Structures are given as C-alpha cells and as structure tokens.
C-alpha cells in the first residue's frame, strides 16, 4: 500500500485534438503499464465512436507506477475526462476526484474554447494546474506566443510551461516529474467512515455495472456492504480493483486511491455520477458536496424508417440505457412517422452519439426529428409544465407565459472571422457579455437561447469561420420569451413530426423555409398540395406543390404489359412507405429529408 505522500491524482484537460490522449498513451508507455504489443493508439478511448471522433465520452482511468528521479516510486492516477461540453457535469465530477491537472495546449493552435471551459472547471475544483505546450516538434509551433496567450486568456502563470511532443515522446519525462513535484498529494483519513466519490459507471456484460470511485476517507474492501447516499440503496461489494490500465483486483482501496468496485448492480441508472458511497454499517455523516442528477436538455424523437423495426428500437434503447443513464426515452406515436420514441439527451453531441450507436451497433435505420429544448410553460391556472415535445404544446389561450433555457457561450475566433460570429450571435438573439482579444484571436462571450444552438448553430459557426472558431457553453438558467409553436400542415392536415417552437420574430422565416423545402421534396401528384406553416389558426407561410401535368407511358403494346405491371408492383411497394394526408400521399423520405437538412 502506498502512503498518501506517494500518490498523485490528476486529469489532463485540453481542447479536442490538442493531444490529450496521445500524451496519456506516452505516459503509460514510459511507466510500463502495457507491453508494446498491448499498446494501441489512445488506449483510453475504448469505444469505436470515441476512437473515430477522437473524443472521450466515458471517464477512464489508469494507475501508473512511476519511479521518479529522486529514486522513489509514486502511484499516479490519471483520470481521463470526457472532453465535450455535453458532459461538463461528468467532467467536473472527474476533476473533483483529482488534486491537479495538466492543461495541454496545442502550441501551433493556442487556447481554444474548450481549453478555457475545462481550465475554469479545474480552477473551480481547486486544482494545481500544470500548463503543457504540445506539438512543439512542429514547424508551426509558437511556444512563446501561446504562453503569453495562456497568461492573458486563462490567467495562469505559464513561465514554466512544459514544452513537449506527445507524438515523439519528447519532454514526457518532464511531465511526469512535474506531476510529482507540483501536484499536491491527496489527503484523507483511513480510519474515518468510508467516503468515496462515484466518478463514473458503465455496464460490463460479465461483471455487471463497474463503478469508478475516488476514495476520500476510509477503506473499501471486498465483501463490505456499502450504501449509496443519494438513494440509500445498499450493495455487497464483489470486487475492488484498479486499472493498470487493465482491471486488476486489489485487497483494498484507501484514501487518495482511484479504482473500481463491482457489486452485482444491473443498471447504471442505480449508480448516479457524483454520488457518495459509504459504509452501510458505519456511514459518513454527510455526502461529498456537488451531487446533482443529470438532466436531459435536448429532446428529439427517433422513429425507425421501417415501422416493423419498432420493437428492435425499443430493445436497443433499453440496452443502451443500461450503460448510459443520462438519456431518457418514452414511446411516442406520430401520424406522420408512426411509432417511435421521444428521447432526452445531455446535448447535441450526446444525441448524435446515441443515434450513431443505434444505427451502427444495433443496425437500425432511424429518422430523427429536429432537436428541441425543454420549455417551461406557465399556465394561466398557475401550473408549470415542462414541455419536451412541440407537439404537446397546450392551447395558446391556456398559456400565461413561456420560459426557455439560455446558455452562456464562449467562442474563440480568429480576428478576420469575428464579424461573422458577431452577426450570427445577434441573428440568434444573442446578448454580448464580453469581447476580448488575445493576439489575433478574439474571445467573445454571449448569452444565447439554447434553442438557437440546437437549430443549426454549430454548422453555421463552422461555415462562417471556415472551421476556425471553437465553441463551448454552459447552461445559464431560464428566461421568459415570446415563443410560438409553428405547425406544418399538408393539405390542411397537421404533420405533427414537423412542428417546432420558435421565437415569434423568427417563426415566419423558419416556417417559410420548411414549406419551401417540403415543396421540393414532395413529388407532384394528381392534386395540388398546399403546404402551410401556421401559428394556432393563423397561416404564416405557404407553398404549393403543383398538380402533376403529364405522367403517362408513351408506348404500350403486347410485350409491354408485363413491364407496365412491374411498374404497378413498384408503386405498390412504394405505397407502404407513404403516409396518407387527406388525398395526398407523402413519401416518408420527404419527411426524412426535411428533417435531415435542418436549416441550411
């Protein structure tokens, strides 16, 4: 057992692609955690999607035994944090399990929005932060400029920032030495009642739910009965262990340790991130600070393109939920799209990840409706309703007022693209809070309605700045707003799946946009088709699909009958994928395309 003075718990925080995972790999290599044969690129990102996207979704951890230059051996616990804004609560929990962080900045790029957001989270967690300039081997590297930027923008002393190349391994030894020298050792009382922070959890098909914990006080041993302080549920511990990075059982976890436990728990929903685990027999007086249940902020409906796949979708969602308690779902019926599920997500990336996993791992073809946020509807009778689905909006006469969620967004952007970013933010009802310069980069902070972000903000930001802007946000409360539900009608029949909520000032242009798009997507038929956008009973935009003018086979004789009948067979098959609206048939593919293209 290592004494506290020889333990160090740390995180690596960085903007995407600044080299966090590569640095982690190098450190594992240097400390001999894995043989070369076992080394795969970025071992810590184990899910396919994480590997492909270069992001970390679940927190992972590794214990390294490092022999320092002073001759002593230290136990270094690296907790790799999720690197995306959707998971900022998880990030803050991971950070609270450590005493310090390495702030990795790409020395060819500089500080980006996520660098900043994560650095602030680390500062809030009282971390000792060690700035690390990565990619120093590249010709475009500008360590001095980036150091100045770190001091100016992040407000950290960067004089002694380490200059490394995680790719070549250059300087990685210094990083390990600095960890030992600069990051404080954890404290804790081994004889006090057990207090362990639940950092993360995931489902393992053999062991059940695995829980990643950081021990603050007391000891965690196999066979103990522990209690989860948020729910009061108790479990018998089956295994305790650490990741080296392979799961390795140990006799006990003691203060300062980061490790795992298993207790035959079936679903991750029973193991909320941020919870405190204590000894059932000798419980701690109170939990660790900062627990909050995770709440979905973005909602979207998922429908199988083939209605027959509805049960498959249900099963797949249940399987995913085993391992991701942060998304919620309930069955939903749409006249346009059939049976599906309304799902809640932590953010847009989370939505994309779930959608992609359903399509990839469970082989489902899905239609995803436009994402929506959670509105608070204050009814005239005083009740407050949380609205997750525009289709469920109450009658306007019953509504007193509506509140919508806002965010505080941080955007880093090169000078020459600043104008575009400012007008985008203004167009999206943004309110400027701050605008500062660091060299040729500007940092703008805006308050924006979340529903403007889920619409197509990322795409627009990317195209306006040619990909040079970085963006991060945090939730910033609810505010009253002039919002309306826009319904889409096809030949006077409501198409529920296309309804959306918009600010009154934008409702007309958004309505027109979707009418125009549908007009191009719905094939001409015998009758003309009116597509309308409406607020309540008032039509705000319309488009017309003209009636078919000519559609007849020119030549049809003896031999052709067989072929002509094949055309009918094809039409019959196609009809199964049509949705009937009055006398109009709309191919499901038209809805799909209308929803997919978002607002371009």
């Amino acid at each position: 057992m290592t004494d506290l003075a020889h333990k160090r718990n740390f995180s690596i925080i960085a903007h995407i692609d600044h080299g966090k995972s590569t640095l982690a790999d190098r450190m594992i290599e240097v400390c001999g955690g894995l043989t070369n044969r076992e080394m795969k690129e970025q071992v810590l990102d184990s899910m396919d999607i994480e590997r492909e996207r270069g992001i970390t979704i679940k927190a992972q951890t590794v214990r390294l035994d490092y022999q320092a230059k002073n001759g002593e051996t230290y136990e270094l616990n690296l907790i790799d944090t999720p690197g995306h804004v959707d998971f900022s609560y998880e990030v803050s929990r991971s950070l609270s399990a450590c005493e310090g962080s390495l702030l990795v900045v790409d020395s060819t790029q500089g500080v980006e929005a996520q660098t900043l957001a994560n650095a602030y989270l680390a500062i809030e967690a009282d971390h000792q932060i060690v700035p690390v300039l990565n990619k120093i081997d590249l010709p475009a590297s500008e360590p001095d400029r980036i150091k100045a930027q770190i001091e100016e923008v992040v407000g950290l002393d960067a004089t002694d920032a380490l200059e490394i190349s995680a790719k070549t391994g250059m300087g990685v030894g210094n990083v390990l030495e600095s960890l030992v020298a600069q990051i404080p050792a954890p404290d804790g009382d081994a004889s006090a009642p057990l207090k362990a922070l639940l950092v993360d959890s995931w489902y393992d098909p053999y062991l059940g739910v695995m829980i990643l914990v950081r021990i603050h006080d007391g000891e965690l041993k196999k066979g103990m009965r522990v209690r989860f302080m948020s729910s009061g549920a108790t479990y018998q511990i089956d295994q305790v262990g650490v990741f080296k990075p392979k799961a390795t059982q140990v006799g006990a976890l003691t203060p300062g340790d980061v490790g795992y436990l298993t207790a035959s728990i079936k679903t991750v929903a029973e193991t909320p991130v941020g919870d405190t685990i204590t000894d059932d027999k000798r419980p701690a007086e109170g939990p660790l600070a900062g627990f909050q249940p995770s709440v979905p902020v973005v909602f979207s409906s998922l429908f199988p393109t083939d209605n027959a796949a509805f049960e498959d979708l249900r099963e797949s969602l249940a399987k995913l939920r085993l391992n991701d308690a942060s998304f919620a779902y309930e069955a939903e019926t749409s006249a346009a799209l059939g049976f599906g599920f309304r799902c809640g997500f932590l953010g847009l990336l989370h939505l994309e990840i779930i959608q992609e996993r359903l399509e990839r791992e469970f082989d489902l073809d899905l239609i995803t409706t436009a994402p929506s946020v959670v509105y608070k509807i204050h009814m005239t009778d005083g009740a407050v309703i949380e609205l997750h689905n525009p289709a469920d909006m109450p009658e306007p006469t019953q509504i007193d007022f509506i509140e919508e969620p806002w965010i505080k967004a941080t955007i880093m952007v090169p000078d020459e693209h600043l104008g575009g970013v400012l007008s985008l933010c203004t167009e999206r009802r943004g309110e400027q809070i701050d605008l500062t310069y660091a060299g040729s980069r500007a940092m703008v902070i805006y308050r924006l309605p979340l529903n403007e972000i889920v619409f197509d903000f990322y795409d627009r930001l990317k195209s306006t700045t040619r990909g040079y802007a970085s963006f991060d946000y945090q939730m910033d409360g609810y505010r009253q707003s002039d919002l309306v539900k826009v319904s889409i009608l096809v030949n006077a029949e409501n198409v529920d799946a296309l309804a959306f909520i918009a600010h009154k000032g934008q409702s007309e242009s958004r309505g027109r946009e979707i009418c125009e798009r549908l007009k191009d997507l719905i094939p001409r038929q015998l009758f003309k088709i009116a597509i309308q956008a409406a607020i309540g009973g008032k039509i705000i935009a319309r488009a017309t699909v003209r009636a078919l003018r000519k559609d007849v086979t020119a030549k049809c004789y003896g031999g052709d009958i067989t072929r002509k009948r094949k055309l009918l067979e094809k039409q019959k098959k196609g009809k199964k994928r049509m949705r009937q609206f009055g006398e109009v048939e709309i191919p499901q593919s038209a809805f799909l395309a209308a929803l997919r293209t978002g607002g371009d």
Partner: protein
Amino acid sequence: MAQFGIYIHWPFCESKCPYCDFNSHVSGILDEAAWRDAYLAELNRYAVETQNHVVTSVYFGGGTPSLMAADTVAAVLQRIQGLWSVSNDFEVTAEANPSSSNRAQFEAFRKAGVNRLSLGMQSLCDESLVFLGRRHTSVEARRAALEAAQVFDRYSLDFIYALPGQTASAWRSELEQILALASGHLSLYQLTIEPGTQFHKDRVPAAGEDVAEVLFRTTRNIMQAAGLADYEISNHALPGEECRHNLIYWRGEYYIGIGPGAHGRLPTHRLNEGLAVEAIQEIRLPNAWLMAVQSGEGGTQKRTALGREERLEELILMGLRLTEGIEFRRFERLFGAPLLTQLDKQKLEHLTDRGFLEQGENTLAATAKGRQRLNAVLAALIV
C-alpha cells in the same frame, strides 16, 4: 367462337437506334429459309391449342420486318390462312423503314397479303433523324410515305417527338407537314429514355414534365382539328381507321406472339374456367429461339397463369389508354365479373368527381385530363 390476333416478330435491323429498347438485333448474313420454316413450325404448334378460333389480324413487327423477303411474308400468311379461318375484315400490318424499302417491295408485300403498312418515319427534320440514329433522310422518308400511299389503302406513319430542345412551335409546324403526308392513321410518341438504350447510357434527358405536357396537348388539339382524334394515348386515326391489331392489346383480347421475345395472351382451357389467362413469352435471343424451334421443343420460354388480380390490372391499365375506355360487356366477357364490382368505390368516385375518370352507361373511361396523367390515375385507382 373465340377470336385472336397473331404477332410475328422479326428481330433484325440494319442498325440499332439509340432510343430503341425493343428486342432487335443487328445480324450479318442469316439463313432466311430457316427462319421462315421456324415461323411456320411455330404457327403449326399454336394451331393445336387454338383450333376453331378465328384470326382477325396479323402484325409483322420488329426489328425491321421490311427487311424480310416478301416470300417469307407470303409463306407465313398462307400458313395462317391454312390453319385458321380469318375474319372478313382481316387486317395484316407490316412495319417498314424508309431506308430498307421501296415501292417494288411495298407491292411485293401487298401481293403477299399485307393490307396495311406502318412506316417508321420518326421525323421530317434531318437533324432529328441523325440524332435518332435513323439511316434515312427526310427526303427519303417523304418518298417512302408517298409510295406507301400509292400502294396501300391503309397506312400509318410513326413519329417521335418531345426530343431534347424541341419547341412547341417547331413541333407544330412539323405536325402540319406530317398531316399533309398522312391518310387515316398516325402514331405520335413522345421520346422516353429507356434503360438499356444508348440514350440512357449517354444520359440524354427526356423532356421535362411541363414541356412534355404542352407538346402533348398541342398534338391532341391539332390532331383533333384535323379529324384524327386520339383513340389511344399516342395513336390517332380517322374513325374506323384504328389499328385493329393493336386494339386487341388495349382491349384485353387474345393474341399469340411468334418470334424471339414475343408475348402472347391466351385463355387456358385446362382450368375449365374459360376466363383464366396465360401469359406466354418466347425465348428472347434470336438464335436460341431458332434452335429451340428447330429442335422441335418450340420457341416458348415460359407460360405463366395470370392471377385474377394481375389480369384485372392488365385489363384496366390497357383499357384506360383508349379514349373509348373499358366497355362493361367486353370486360365481363373477358373477366367473368362486372368491372364496377372489382374497383374500390370510394377511389372511383373520387377520381370521377375530380374529372380524371368518366362513367358512361356502358363504359368506364379516362378523360383527356386523366389520360394525360394515366400512370398516376392508375396508381390512385388500383394500387
């Protein structure tokens, strides 16, 4: 006593036109005597199951039947008259190409028994003829039409329109010239780009819907004014001058097809229903067909009993192409049940109310508006 028509397919052409997706082949030297014997053998074979039937029409199609020797045509027609009795208004049509025929040949065909000619003019514009891959010029086309008029009492001219870039005014003036050459019958087809053709490979664009509609309506109006009303989507005739053979297809009557890839529809007696119909398909590749016939097995690739629903669909989708529509009595004779009992009443009413279909005392017909959008009307009625 049942009546039927006979289609004879001559699968050879001098060259393959870029729009054509018919079963046509360019062949070098061929043994015409062998082909003649094969046609005769097939006629003998079909005679066994069509004893006591009356032949109302024969149609030589292709390919390019004007490449056949008149002797062959004569032998085929003689055999037909030997095997069956023919109706009083027995119609014998042969298709001909301006590039592979002349007055002497027309006369030889007439002597052989052909009494109606269908001439593949395709255009009166040289530029269009080149585009369509035709081997004749507009001068040759006009000459052929005049010679046909001199030799045959009944002849039809075939044209293709709605070519890429063709304007309504250009087509209108071409139509005026066409009418000057025509007598009782014109087939006017809009160009369609069929899979497997050179045009399809070259991604030649078909006329857009709006242009196609204007051209279609223009054609109908001009032809009506000239007295050659459209009796079918693409076919126009003076009253009584309709192609009796082609009417067999559209009215759902019976026919046999002889030659590579030809199709037939015959009632099956073995089910003892009288109304059950078999679709017959001949072997498609010319030499394979010839060898199968020579071996004594016959040229049939397969015979498939049409299901009730399939037969119903055929009768409707063919019948509604005709301006006269579907005659209730004929339908009941061919199908064994009244037409209106076979259709979804609500759909029928809806399409009638909207002016796409029209119910007479004895017929159900598509209106002009409906015929122009027949594919969609059919989909709305029976899909």
